[in-house]
Protein backbone atom coordinates (compact mmCIF):
# COMPACT_ATOMS: atom_id res chain seq x y z
CA UNK A 1 0.00 0.00 0.00
CA UNK A 2 2.76 2.41 0.97
CA UNK A 3 4.65 1.50 -2.16
CA UNK A 4 1.63 2.34 -4.30
CA UNK A 5 1.21 5.68 -2.54
CA UNK A 6 4.88 6.42 -3.05
CA UNK A 7 4.69 5.58 -6.76
CA UNK A 8 1.55 7.67 -7.16
CA UNK A 9 2.89 10.71 -5.38
CA UNK A 10 6.24 10.68 -7.18
CA UNK A 11 4.50 10.32 -10.56
CA UNK A 12 2.25 13.27 -9.73
CA UNK A 13 5.13 15.45 -8.60
CA UNK A 14 7.11 14.53 -11.73
CA UNK A 15 4.17 15.52 -13.92
CA UNK A 16 3.74 18.75 -11.97
CA UNK A 17 7.42 19.55 -12.47
CA UNK A 18 7.22 18.93 -16.23
CA UNK A 19 4.06 21.01 -16.47
CA UNK A 20 5.64 23.84 -14.51
CA UNK A 21 8.70 23.78 -16.76
CA UNK A 22 6.61 24.10 -19.91
CA UNK A 23 4.42 26.84 -18.43
CA UNK A 24 7.60 28.67 -17.48
CA UNK A 25 8.89 28.37 -21.06
CA UNK A 26 5.58 29.55 -22.55
CA UNK A 27 5.48 32.53 -20.20
CA UNK A 28 9.07 33.46 -21.00
CA UNK A 29 8.44 33.23 -24.76
CA UNK A 30 5.27 35.29 -24.45
CA UNK A 31 7.13 37.97 -22.49
CA UNK A 32 9.86 38.18 -25.15
CA UNK A 33 7.40 39.73 -27.59
CA UNK A 34 5.79 42.17 -25.16
CA UNK A 35 7.14 45.69 -24.64
CA UNK A 36 9.06 47.22 -22.98
CA UNK A 37 11.92 45.56 -24.82
CA UNK A 38 15.24 45.83 -23.05
CA UNK A 39 17.98 45.58 -25.69
CA UNK A 40 20.66 46.59 -23.18
CA UNK A 41 19.89 43.51 -21.07
CA UNK A 42 20.07 41.27 -24.12
CA UNK A 43 23.42 42.88 -25.00
CA UNK A 44 24.69 42.14 -21.49
CA UNK A 45 23.63 38.54 -21.77
CA UNK A 46 25.16 38.20 -25.23
CA UNK A 47 28.41 39.39 -23.71
CA UNK A 48 28.10 36.92 -20.87
CA UNK A 49 26.88 33.84 -22.79
CA UNK A 50 28.64 34.57 -26.05
CA UNK A 51 31.83 36.56 -25.79
CA UNK A 52 33.03 35.19 -22.46
CA UNK A 53 32.45 31.60 -23.59
CA UNK A 54 34.36 32.07 -26.85
CA UNK A 55 37.73 31.30 -25.30
CA UNK A 56 36.75 28.05 -23.64
CA UNK A 57 34.81 26.98 -26.75
CA UNK A 58 37.84 27.68 -28.94
CA UNK A 59 40.06 25.66 -26.63
CA UNK A 60 37.64 22.72 -26.57
CA UNK A 61 37.16 22.89 -30.31
CA UNK A 62 40.82 22.84 -31.27
CA UNK A 63 41.55 19.80 -29.11
CA UNK A 64 38.40 18.02 -30.28
CA UNK A 65 39.42 18.56 -33.89
CA UNK A 66 42.95 17.42 -33.19
CA UNK A 67 41.95 14.21 -31.46
CA UNK A 68 39.32 13.52 -34.11
CA UNK A 69 41.99 13.77 -36.80
CA UNK A 70 44.30 11.49 -34.82
CA UNK A 71 41.63 8.85 -34.26
CA UNK A 72 40.26 9.15 -37.78
CA UNK A 73 43.71 8.79 -39.24
CA UNK A 74 44.38 5.50 -37.47
CA UNK A 75 40.99 4.08 -38.48
CA UNK A 76 41.11 5.27 -42.08
CA UNK A 77 44.70 4.17 -42.58
CA UNK A 78 43.58 0.56 -42.26
CA UNK A 79 41.62 1.01 -45.49
CA UNK A 80 44.20 3.19 -47.14
CA UNK A 81 41.68 6.01 -47.18
CA UNK A 82 43.62 8.76 -45.38
CA UNK A 83 42.42 11.14 -48.08
CA UNK A 84 38.95 11.07 -46.51
CA UNK A 85 40.29 12.41 -43.21
CA UNK A 86 39.19 15.95 -43.98
CA UNK A 87 35.58 14.99 -44.59
CA UNK A 88 35.53 12.69 -41.55
CA UNK A 89 36.68 15.53 -39.30
CA UNK A 90 34.45 18.14 -40.91
CA UNK A 91 31.30 16.01 -40.93
CA UNK A 92 31.85 14.88 -37.35
CA UNK A 93 32.38 18.47 -36.28
CA UNK A 94 29.52 20.07 -38.17
CA UNK A 95 26.90 17.39 -37.62
CA UNK A 96 27.52 16.24 -34.05
CA UNK A 97 30.46 17.41 -32.04
CA UNK A 98 30.16 21.13 -32.70
CA UNK A 99 26.55 21.51 -31.58
CA UNK A 100 26.74 18.99 -28.71
CA UNK A 101 30.13 19.82 -27.20
CA UNK A 102 29.66 23.54 -27.82
CA UNK A 103 26.33 23.57 -25.97
CA UNK A 104 27.72 21.40 -23.17
CA UNK A 105 30.48 23.96 -22.67
CA UNK A 106 27.89 26.74 -22.62
CA UNK A 107 25.92 24.76 -20.03
CA UNK A 108 28.97 24.26 -17.87
CA UNK A 109 30.16 27.82 -18.08
CA UNK A 110 27.09 30.04 -18.48
CA UNK A 111 24.20 27.76 -17.52
CA UNK A 112 25.49 27.07 -14.03
CA UNK A 113 26.16 30.78 -13.47
CA UNK A 114 22.64 31.59 -14.65
CA UNK A 115 21.04 29.20 -12.17
CA UNK A 116 23.16 30.51 -9.32
CA UNK A 117 22.49 34.15 -10.23
CA UNK A 118 18.73 33.79 -10.46
CA UNK A 119 18.63 31.49 -7.43
CA UNK A 120 20.46 34.04 -5.26
CA UNK A 121 18.03 36.72 -6.41
CA UNK A 122 15.15 34.45 -5.39
CA UNK A 123 16.63 33.64 -1.98
CA UNK A 124 17.50 37.25 -1.16
CA UNK A 125 13.96 38.16 -2.24
CA UNK A 126 15.07 40.45 -5.04
CA UNK A 127 12.60 38.71 -7.33
CA UNK A 128 9.75 39.40 -4.91
CA UNK A 129 10.93 43.01 -4.72
CA UNK A 130 10.72 43.26 -8.51
CA UNK A 131 7.17 41.99 -8.45
CA UNK A 132 6.33 44.57 -5.82
CA UNK A 133 7.67 47.26 -8.15
CA UNK A 134 5.50 45.87 -10.97
CA UNK A 135 8.51 44.68 -12.95
CA UNK A 136 7.80 41.22 -14.25
CA UNK A 137 10.82 39.12 -13.21
CA UNK A 138 10.35 36.68 -16.06
CA UNK A 139 10.44 39.49 -18.56
CA UNK A 140 13.31 41.32 -16.88
CA UNK A 141 15.51 38.33 -15.98
CA UNK A 142 14.56 35.30 -18.05
CA UNK A 143 13.48 36.58 -21.46
CA UNK A 144 16.79 38.38 -22.26
CA UNK A 145 18.72 35.26 -21.27
CA UNK A 146 16.66 33.04 -23.56
CA UNK A 147 16.94 35.46 -26.49
CA UNK A 148 20.68 35.78 -25.96
CA UNK A 149 21.08 32.02 -25.61
CA UNK A 150 19.24 31.28 -28.85
CA UNK A 151 21.36 33.91 -30.61
CA UNK A 152 24.74 33.14 -29.05
CA UNK A 153 24.85 29.34 -29.13
CA UNK A 154 24.61 28.98 -32.96
CA UNK A 155 27.36 31.58 -33.34
CA UNK A 156 29.53 29.79 -30.79
CA UNK A 157 28.89 26.49 -32.54
CA UNK A 158 29.89 27.99 -35.90
CA UNK A 159 33.16 29.18 -34.33
CA UNK A 160 33.57 25.73 -32.75
CA UNK A 161 33.15 24.03 -36.16
CA UNK A 162 35.67 26.24 -37.93
CA UNK A 163 38.26 26.04 -35.15
CA UNK A 164 37.76 22.29 -34.87
CA UNK A 165 38.29 21.73 -38.58
CA UNK A 166 41.42 23.87 -38.32
CA UNK A 167 42.61 21.71 -35.42
CA UNK A 168 42.00 18.62 -37.55
CA UNK A 169 43.97 20.26 -40.34
CA UNK A 170 46.91 20.94 -38.01
CA UNK A 171 47.18 17.33 -36.87
CA UNK A 172 46.14 15.65 -40.12
CA UNK A 173 48.17 17.69 -42.57
CA UNK A 174 50.99 19.22 -40.57
CA UNK A 175 51.66 16.34 -38.20
CA UNK A 176 50.53 13.13 -39.91
CA UNK A 177 51.29 14.15 -43.47
CA UNK A 178 47.92 13.80 -45.20
CA UNK A 179 48.11 15.95 -48.32
CA UNK A 180 46.50 19.31 -47.74
CA UNK A 181 44.77 19.22 -51.12
CA UNK A 182 42.94 15.97 -50.47
CA UNK A 183 42.07 17.15 -46.95
CA UNK A 184 40.26 20.26 -48.20
CA UNK A 185 38.81 18.74 -51.36
CA UNK A 186 37.26 15.85 -49.44
CA UNK A 187 35.68 18.42 -47.11
CA UNK A 188 34.33 20.38 -50.06
CA UNK A 189 32.93 17.36 -51.85
CA UNK A 190 31.39 15.61 -48.84
CA UNK A 191 29.96 18.42 -46.71
CA UNK A 192 26.63 19.60 -48.02
CA UNK A 193 24.07 22.22 -47.13
CA UNK A 194 21.92 19.67 -45.28
CA UNK A 195 24.81 18.93 -42.87
CA UNK A 196 25.38 22.60 -42.12
CA UNK A 197 21.66 23.30 -41.81
CA UNK A 198 21.15 20.34 -39.46
CA UNK A 199 23.98 21.58 -37.25
CA UNK A 200 22.47 25.06 -37.04
CA UNK A 201 19.03 23.70 -36.22
CA UNK A 202 20.54 21.62 -33.42
CA UNK A 203 22.52 24.49 -31.97
CA UNK A 204 19.51 26.82 -31.93
CA UNK A 205 17.41 24.27 -30.05
CA UNK A 206 20.29 23.51 -27.65
CA UNK A 207 20.60 27.23 -26.91
CA UNK A 208 16.94 27.26 -25.96
CA UNK A 209 17.27 24.12 -23.80
CA UNK A 210 20.26 25.41 -21.83
CA UNK A 211 18.80 28.81 -20.99
CA UNK A 212 15.34 27.42 -20.34
CA UNK A 213 16.36 24.61 -17.95
CA UNK A 214 19.02 26.61 -16.11
CA UNK A 215 16.77 29.65 -15.63
CA UNK A 216 13.90 27.44 -14.50
CA UNK A 217 15.99 25.66 -11.89
CA UNK A 218 17.24 28.98 -10.50
CA UNK A 219 13.82 30.61 -10.55
CA UNK A 220 12.17 27.85 -8.51
CA UNK A 221 15.08 27.10 -6.20
CA UNK A 222 14.54 25.98 -2.61
CA UNK A 223 15.01 28.83 -0.18
CA UNK A 224 18.32 27.74 1.32
CA UNK A 225 22.00 27.73 0.45
CA UNK A 226 21.91 23.97 0.20
CA UNK A 227 18.83 24.11 -2.02
CA UNK A 228 20.55 26.53 -4.38
CA UNK A 229 23.52 24.18 -4.67
CA UNK A 230 21.10 21.39 -5.50
CA UNK A 231 19.30 23.55 -8.04
CA UNK A 232 22.58 24.44 -9.78
CA UNK A 233 23.60 20.79 -10.02
CA UNK A 234 20.17 19.81 -11.29
CA UNK A 235 20.18 22.59 -13.85
CA UNK A 236 23.52 21.54 -15.31
CA UNK A 237 22.76 17.81 -15.23
CA UNK A 238 19.24 18.13 -16.63
CA UNK A 239 20.22 20.43 -19.47
CA UNK A 240 23.21 18.25 -20.40
CA UNK A 241 21.02 15.14 -20.45
CA UNK A 242 18.28 16.93 -22.39
CA UNK A 243 20.84 18.12 -24.94
CA UNK A 244 22.02 14.56 -25.56
CA UNK A 245 18.52 13.08 -25.69
CA UNK A 246 17.16 15.85 -27.93
CA UNK A 247 20.26 15.46 -30.11
CA UNK A 248 19.37 11.83 -30.72
CA UNK A 249 15.79 12.69 -31.66
CA UNK A 250 16.78 15.55 -33.95
CA UNK A 251 19.43 13.43 -35.66
CA UNK A 252 17.01 10.59 -36.30
CA UNK A 253 14.46 13.03 -37.73
CA UNK A 254 16.95 14.96 -39.84
CA UNK A 255 18.76 11.98 -41.32
Amino acid at each position, binding site marked *: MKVLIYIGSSTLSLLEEIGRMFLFLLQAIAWIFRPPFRPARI*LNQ*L*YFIGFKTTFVVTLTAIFTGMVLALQGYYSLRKFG*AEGLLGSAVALGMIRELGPVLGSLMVTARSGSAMTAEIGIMRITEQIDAMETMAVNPIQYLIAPKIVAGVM*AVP*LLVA*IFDIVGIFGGYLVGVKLLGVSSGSFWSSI*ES*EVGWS*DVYGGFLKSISFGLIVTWVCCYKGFYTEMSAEGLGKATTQGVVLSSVLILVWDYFLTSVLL
Partner: protein
Amino acid sequence: MQRGRLELAVGVFVVLGILSMGYLALKLGKLELVGGGYYDIHAEFSSASGLKPGAPVEIAGVQVGRVKTIGLNDSQASVTLALQSGIEIYSDAIASIKSRGIIGEKFMELSPGGSGDLLRTGDTILDTEAGIDLEQVISQFIHGNVE
Protein backbone atom coordinates in the same frame (compact mmCIF):
# COMPACT_ATOMS: atom_id res chain seq x y z
CA MET B 1 32.12 47.42 -17.27
CA GLN B 2 31.91 50.40 -19.54
CA ARG B 3 29.14 50.37 -22.05
CA GLY B 4 31.52 51.02 -24.96
CA ARG B 5 33.76 48.07 -24.09
CA LEU B 6 30.72 45.83 -23.71
CA GLU B 7 29.39 46.80 -27.10
CA LEU B 8 32.81 46.26 -28.64
CA ALA B 9 33.13 42.78 -27.13
CA VAL B 10 29.66 41.72 -28.26
CA GLY B 11 30.33 43.20 -31.68
CA VAL B 12 33.56 41.20 -32.04
CA PHE B 13 31.77 38.03 -30.95
CA VAL B 14 28.83 38.48 -33.30
CA VAL B 15 30.99 39.36 -36.31
CA LEU B 16 33.26 36.38 -35.63
CA GLY B 17 30.27 34.07 -35.30
CA ILE B 18 28.53 35.33 -38.41
CA LEU B 19 31.75 35.06 -40.43
CA SER B 20 32.17 31.44 -39.32
CA MET B 21 28.54 30.74 -40.08
CA GLY B 22 28.83 32.33 -43.50
CA TYR B 23 31.95 30.33 -44.26
CA LEU B 24 30.20 27.10 -43.28
CA ALA B 25 27.07 27.87 -45.25
CA LEU B 26 28.57 29.33 -48.41
CA LYS B 27 31.92 27.58 -48.77
CA LEU B 28 31.24 24.18 -47.21
CA GLY B 29 27.45 24.05 -47.52
CA LYS B 30 27.63 25.32 -51.09
CA LEU B 31 24.53 27.41 -50.55
CA GLU B 32 24.41 29.30 -53.82
CA LEU B 33 22.98 32.76 -53.33
CA VAL B 34 23.89 33.85 -56.82
CA GLY B 35 23.13 31.39 -59.56
CA GLY B 36 24.68 31.91 -62.94
CA GLY B 37 28.07 31.05 -64.25
CA TYR B 38 26.71 27.56 -64.91
CA TYR B 39 24.64 25.86 -67.60
CA ASP B 40 22.77 22.57 -67.50
CA ILE B 41 23.39 19.53 -69.68
CA HIS B 42 21.50 16.22 -69.46
CA ALA B 43 22.88 12.72 -69.80
CA GLU B 44 21.17 9.34 -69.50
CA PHE B 45 22.89 6.32 -68.03
CA SER B 46 21.89 2.67 -67.73
CA SER B 47 22.98 2.92 -64.09
CA ALA B 48 24.00 5.85 -61.89
CA SER B 49 24.73 3.61 -58.93
CA GLY B 50 26.84 5.39 -56.34
CA LEU B 51 26.72 8.78 -58.05
CA LYS B 52 25.41 11.53 -55.80
CA PRO B 53 24.20 15.08 -56.44
CA GLY B 54 27.13 17.41 -55.91
CA ALA B 55 29.68 14.94 -57.30
CA PRO B 56 32.36 16.65 -59.39
CA VAL B 57 32.32 16.65 -63.18
CA GLU B 58 35.80 16.57 -64.69
CA ILE B 59 37.41 17.00 -68.07
CA ALA B 60 40.95 15.59 -68.19
CA GLY B 61 40.94 15.46 -64.38
CA VAL B 62 40.08 19.15 -64.00
CA GLN B 63 36.82 19.94 -62.26
CA VAL B 64 34.47 21.88 -64.54
CA GLY B 65 31.14 21.46 -62.78
CA ARG B 66 28.93 19.37 -60.54
CA VAL B 67 26.18 16.80 -60.79
CA LYS B 68 23.00 18.75 -60.10
CA THR B 69 20.16 16.23 -59.99
CA ILE B 70 19.70 12.51 -60.54
CA GLY B 71 16.29 11.19 -61.53
CA LEU B 72 14.59 8.30 -63.26
CA ASN B 73 13.41 8.60 -66.84
CA ASP B 74 11.99 5.51 -68.62
CA SER B 75 13.99 3.18 -66.34
CA GLN B 76 17.14 5.06 -67.30
CA ALA B 77 19.05 7.22 -64.82
CA SER B 78 18.68 10.81 -65.98
CA VAL B 79 21.50 13.00 -64.68
CA THR B 80 21.65 16.78 -64.94
CA LEU B 81 25.10 18.35 -64.92
CA ALA B 82 25.83 21.98 -64.08
CA LEU B 83 28.88 22.99 -66.13
CA GLN B 84 30.79 26.23 -65.87
CA SER B 85 29.89 28.52 -68.73
CA GLY B 86 32.95 28.84 -70.89
CA ILE B 87 33.46 25.08 -70.98
CA GLU B 88 32.58 23.96 -74.49
CA ILE B 89 31.40 20.44 -75.20
CA TYR B 90 30.14 19.09 -78.49
CA SER B 91 27.45 16.65 -79.55
CA ASP B 92 29.93 13.77 -79.79
CA ALA B 93 30.99 14.21 -76.14
CA ILE B 94 31.24 11.09 -73.97
CA ALA B 95 30.10 11.12 -70.33
CA SER B 96 31.29 8.28 -68.12
CA ILE B 97 30.89 7.55 -64.42
CA LYS B 98 34.15 6.64 -62.73
CA SER B 99 35.30 6.11 -59.18
CA ARG B 100 38.42 7.14 -57.36
CA GLY B 101 39.93 3.93 -56.06
CA ILE B 102 37.91 0.99 -54.84
CA ILE B 103 36.01 2.73 -52.04
CA GLY B 104 36.47 6.23 -53.42
CA GLU B 105 33.62 8.51 -54.41
CA LYS B 106 32.02 8.35 -57.84
CA PHE B 107 32.52 11.24 -60.23
CA MET B 108 31.73 12.04 -63.85
CA GLU B 109 34.40 12.20 -66.50
CA LEU B 110 33.60 14.08 -69.69
CA SER B 111 35.53 13.97 -72.89
CA PRO B 112 34.30 17.08 -74.62
CA GLY B 113 34.40 15.79 -78.19
CA GLY B 114 35.43 17.95 -81.08
CA SER B 115 33.01 17.70 -83.94
CA GLY B 116 29.32 18.35 -84.44
CA ASP B 117 27.26 21.06 -82.78
CA LEU B 118 28.13 22.91 -79.60
CA LEU B 119 25.83 21.69 -76.78
CA ARG B 120 23.72 24.36 -75.13
CA THR B 121 21.59 24.55 -71.98
CA GLY B 122 19.12 21.67 -71.85
CA ASP B 123 20.82 19.57 -74.53
CA THR B 124 21.56 15.90 -73.92
CA ILE B 125 24.82 14.01 -74.15
CA LEU B 126 24.01 10.89 -76.15
CA ASP B 127 27.14 8.83 -75.65
CA THR B 128 27.36 7.63 -72.05
CA GLU B 129 29.11 4.91 -70.07
CA ALA B 130 27.79 3.73 -66.71
CA GLY B 131 30.25 3.00 -63.94
CA ILE B 132 31.96 -0.35 -63.74
CA ASP B 133 30.27 -2.68 -61.28
CA LEU B 134 33.25 -4.06 -59.42
CA GLU B 135 31.39 -7.06 -58.03
CA GLN B 136 30.26 -8.07 -61.48
CA VAL B 137 33.81 -7.84 -62.80
CA ILE B 138 35.12 -9.95 -59.93
CA SER B 139 32.39 -12.55 -60.34
CA GLN B 140 33.09 -12.77 -64.05
CA PHE B 141 36.73 -13.23 -63.22
CA ILE B 142 36.00 -15.93 -60.67
CA HIS B 143 33.58 -17.80 -62.90
CA GLY B 144 35.95 -17.47 -65.80
CA ASN B 145 33.84 -15.52 -68.26
CA VAL B 146 36.42 -12.86 -68.94
CA GLU B 147 36.89 -12.47 -72.65
